[in-house]
């Protein structure tokens, strides 16, 4: 049982909202709201949306129908970082987050499964040197995976690139 929920967030006035999606571990049949809180029904279960809770079915023994880890994934679009289609050299990056994510970098728009091996970074990488990650590609996509059990937020990311030729 699972339900995919597409969420459109309108949190900046006079600006387009942002889409995200979630996979819930139940077949959602109804939504209702009471006292500005969202209740979700699936089968005989009624769940309350609570941003202070870090698991689905929190408190239940793990296993079928039990507590479910909620892993957060943020992935940017493939960013050209300059002229489209022109090869660039990614030197490294910095990222500022709440939480300690695992990082992968996508570098092949023809095969979205092509990602670098994941590694964990501190919440704020700006102090000290940049995080070196040399990759040559026309575009790059940063993918951050936040582990379950802790609140998380992505605040910024900096890419450091080097041109291969003048004018590129």
């Amino acid at each position, binding site marked *: 049982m*699972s339900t995919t929920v*597409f969420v*459109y967030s*309108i949190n900046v006035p006079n600006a*387009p909202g942002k889409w995200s999606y979630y996979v819930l571990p139940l077949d*959602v049949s109804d939504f209702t*709201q009471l006292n*500005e809180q*969202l209740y979700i029904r699936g089968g005989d279960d009624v769940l309350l949306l609570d941003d202070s809770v870090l698991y689905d079915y929190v408190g239940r023994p793990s296993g079928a129908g039990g507590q479910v880890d909620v892993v957060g994934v943020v992935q940017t679009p493939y960013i050209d970082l300059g002229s489209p289609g022109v090869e660039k050299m990614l030197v490294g990056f910095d990222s500022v987050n709440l939480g300690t994510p695992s990082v992968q970098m996508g570098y092949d728009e023809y095969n979205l499964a092509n990602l670098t091996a994941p590694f964990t970074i501190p919440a704020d990488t700006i102090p000290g040197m940049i995080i070196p990650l040399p990759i040559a590609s026309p575009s790059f996509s940063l993918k951050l995976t936040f582990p379950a059990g802790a609140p998380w937020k992505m605040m910024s990311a900096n890419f450091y690139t080097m041109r291969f030729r003048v004018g590129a």
Partner: protein
Amino acid sequence: MSGIPTWQAGTTYAPGALVVPSSSPAVAQVQPANAGFEAGTLSGWTTGDPSHWTISTVGPYQGTYCARITGAALTSMQSTTKPAIRVGDTISVSVMARITNAGTDDAHFQAVLQWLDGSGNLLPGAGGYVPGNEVQGVGGFWAASTASGVAPVGAAAFNISLSANPGTHGSVIDVDSASYTYATAAPSAGLVYKATQAAPGKSGASEPVWPAAGSSVTDNQVTWQGEYATRLIWQASPILQSGATEPVWPTQVGAVIHDGTIDWTARSAQITDPNCPQSKIVAIGAGKVFAADNDIVRYCATVNPLDWSSANDAGYLPTGLQTYGSNPVAAMGLYRSNLVVYNAEGFQMWQLDPDPANIALLDALPVASTHNRALAPTANDLFFLSSQGVRSMGIASAGVNLEAGDVGMPVDALVKPALTTAIANGMEPIGTYIPAMGQFWLAFGEYPMSPLVLLGALPTAVVGLPYAYDFTVAGGNHVYSNPRVTVGTLPAWATLTLAGNKLHIAGTPTGGSATVSLTLAVDSGDGQTATSAQSLRVYLAIVWNVADVSSLASISNGGQDLFSNNASAIPGARSTGSKTTGKAYLEIEKLIGTSPNGSVAGFATAAATLGQYCGSDAFGWGLQFDAPAGGYKYHAGVGVAITALAGLVCAAGQRAMLAIDYDAGLMWFGIKGTWDGNPSAGTGATYTFTPNTALFVLGGTQLSQTIRIHAGQDALTYPPPAGFPAGFLS
């Protein structure tokens, strides 16, 4: 009045002292004598037709008794309790009634309030009584009949009359719990008496006759003046109180059930106006409920959702007669207080107003949606789910197509496959707007799809017994097809069919015992294939072996029946198969024959003799199940009466039971459902033998009788002991 002392004789009262009389009689409402017939008689009531009235204990409304009226005639009975009243008093009488009939509805009942003169006679003319509401119909439940009226001129008393006509189809009418409700003059609740003499004085030896408010009375040295107290005292008391246990709720609309001091009436909450379409596609605006009804949209009267018919208030929008209205209405929502009606072709926007004359079509565009639950007014817009993804009314109205840049386009590539799956699965997408979070949520249930799987395992089959099993197909997009065997071959006797999510295999096995390995497969509409490797074990139930039978006996009916007309030896036959391990349970039926002492069955080795009964030598253990004194067991030629089976004798058509545990070396015998010992617990075995000895079933009969073996090829009469498989299979 609470807090004010009552008058006391010989007491000193200072000027200004307050008292209330102590001699005022309590006012009580007189009720009909024997109101609920709990005396078990009709005492307190009088009737001119006593043959029609009896006391009944069948389902009284309250207590133990009620009165019952039978007979095809109009009859009545009156209470002999006739409380005095004054002209102008408001009186109500009530009684519970229940009609019980056989489907006819010609029985009637009503309570009647009768006005009586000073002599207790009924006032003349139509003004002498007030008829109550009539209880009639098919009935079967209790209902109240109540009559109310204001005492007319000449009335000095009243009573209740029970008027009944059970009709001509054998109906009966039960009545119970008659009651009076009326008001009589009572002492004024706030009237107190204040000492007004100049100096303190003593009250008299007896209480004075208290005057009305504003008047005085002398009480020895005290002068009392009637006054109304001005303070308010609030006292809470239960008006209605439920009983100690929950009543059995009636399910018929209009039925009444008594519960403590409460009478509950069954009501229906359903809107019964025939013009209400009872549709789930609904929107509320301008004080009206709008509901889709095929190619129109009906609406109720303003602020009255029970009324869908009043002219110039309720009505319908003729959406089918407007642009883009030729398809049935599929979704509705509100956009800036206007009603937006969607179908598969486009949408219409209607201006709403409490006055139907002001409801008007504003616009119509070819932008469609058929997903009613996905609609959600979001911020100052209306989001809806189209075939291309999430769209908003504001942009769709301006763009007049679904490909103009709109709110949902960044996720169209994700939403479209989810929508395709939802449609295939019959799952309705659900949308909602959460103002507290500024978010629009759109949920697709059962997505992503779970893998297609085939759940189940084939049970064993027995030759000759009908066989059927259903596998459950789960996952995928719920559109299943192409059931087949991909590895191995389905037995010729079996069929494989698919109905919904059930893969059904059925047939009646033929041939001998066998094990068939096969892999079953089924496809789902999203391109998945589920397979399941199965092993189908087909057993053959044992019968009497035509190659291993005494020359004094014969076998028929495919080996199940054993016959012998021998006079005394009880010759027999061995079974077609034996076992050395596991457990088995079978039954032996005395099929034909009335002679006693004729049939023995049990277990034996291949060395046991067939010319005499089972147990006549050391190689068999037999049960005689038709001995006149009851079960008898034999081994090595020694017969012993089985105490637990004493008196149990199989006649024609009745069965003996045999159970054996090869691994434990134990066997149990039983007759007609009664065991010697307890095979389920593994205790009290009739005989023991060397574990894992190869033993056959051995049976015999005589005197032109026939016994039949039931070893799994047909139904068993008694349940196998716990842990024993049904039948003796090989």
